[in-house]
């Protein structure tokens, strides 16, 4: 089954970095890109999204606020906050939303660890 990942980041460069890491780690996954919270919410209501990777520092609604909204309709979807803002408070808030925290600059190892955990959870949920 081809999995779909939603990438939410206002920075084109950051989306390029993520997409290129995906090509190395999980080339078969389909990527959907959104540049802000509204587009992201529209994307998850319009189609099936299996995993979401969300930047924290975005104009308008920030990544954690976006995930809180996503949780209302997708309480169990594997989600990661991707941010260079490694403050303990931000990481704790991500945990409260049952989201992983992946630090920027993004490394293949960190993304691979999140994606393999996510794929495992999705397989278990499908059983």
């Amino acid at each position, binding site marked *: 089954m081809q999995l779909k990942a939603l990438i939410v980041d206002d920075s084109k460069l950051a989306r390029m970095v993520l997409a290129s890491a995906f090509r190395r780690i999980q080339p078969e996954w389909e990527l959907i890109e959104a540049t802000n919270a509204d587009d992201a919410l529209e994307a998850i209501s319009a189609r099936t999204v299996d995993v979401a990777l969300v930047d924290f520092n975005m104009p308008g609604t920030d990544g954690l606020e976006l995930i809180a909204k996503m949780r209302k309709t997708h309480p169990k979807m594997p989600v990661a906050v991707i941010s260079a803002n490694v403050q303990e408070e931000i990481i704790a808030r991500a945990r409260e939303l049952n989201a992983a925290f992946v630090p920027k600059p993004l*490394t293949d190892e960190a993304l691979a660890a999140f994606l393999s955990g996510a794929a495992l959870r999705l397989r278990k949920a499908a059983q």
Partner: protein
Amino acid sequence: MKFGASELSEVEQDALAEIANIGVSRAANSLRQMVGEQVLLSVPAVSIVTRQAASRLVERDNPAKLVAVQQSFEGPFSGRALLIFPEAQSLELVRSIIGDEHSLEDVIDLEHEALAETGNIILNACLATIANVLRRTMRMSLPSVIRGDGATLFDVQGGANGGNLVLFLYIDFTIKHHDVHGFIALLMDLPAITILKAIVRDYIDAIGQQPSSHVG
């Protein structure tokens, strides 16, 4: 650069330089990961100066045309953090981050995006680490890219609100094997300095009480 005796004590100055050093080292490590080359850092300098003096310090060792990514921060203390390069080097920096496989056209296209995102990562690494070390929370704005001389970058004209004196903290860096040199500067508004002194004092006291905690 000397402090006024009433401003920061020697030990507070040392502590601030050390905290900045921890933050900037983390930022340098982020930059290192992005460019894949060692990033060499200078010893951090901390001083209380006018915005004009800060801009002169920046202009002294650099060409007049600079490009900076800036983020404002708010919390127990407020100010701005800037990642600054000579404008002529910004394309080289972008190229060192996105890799050699992109054409010059692509590099130029992506310059603004790449600078903003690089600044976002590096300044967040620095500020978030400082916040963690001080056990405080800071809010950071979105990054913006500005171009001009030192006076433009440090808002010498518009600095009237909150007075003209700032806590100026800077550190030089050079990326090995790339012709990229720049520096990270923090400008903190003076009204916040009394608060900052109290926070630094807490940090120093905590070191005294827990010699094995997060020092070094």
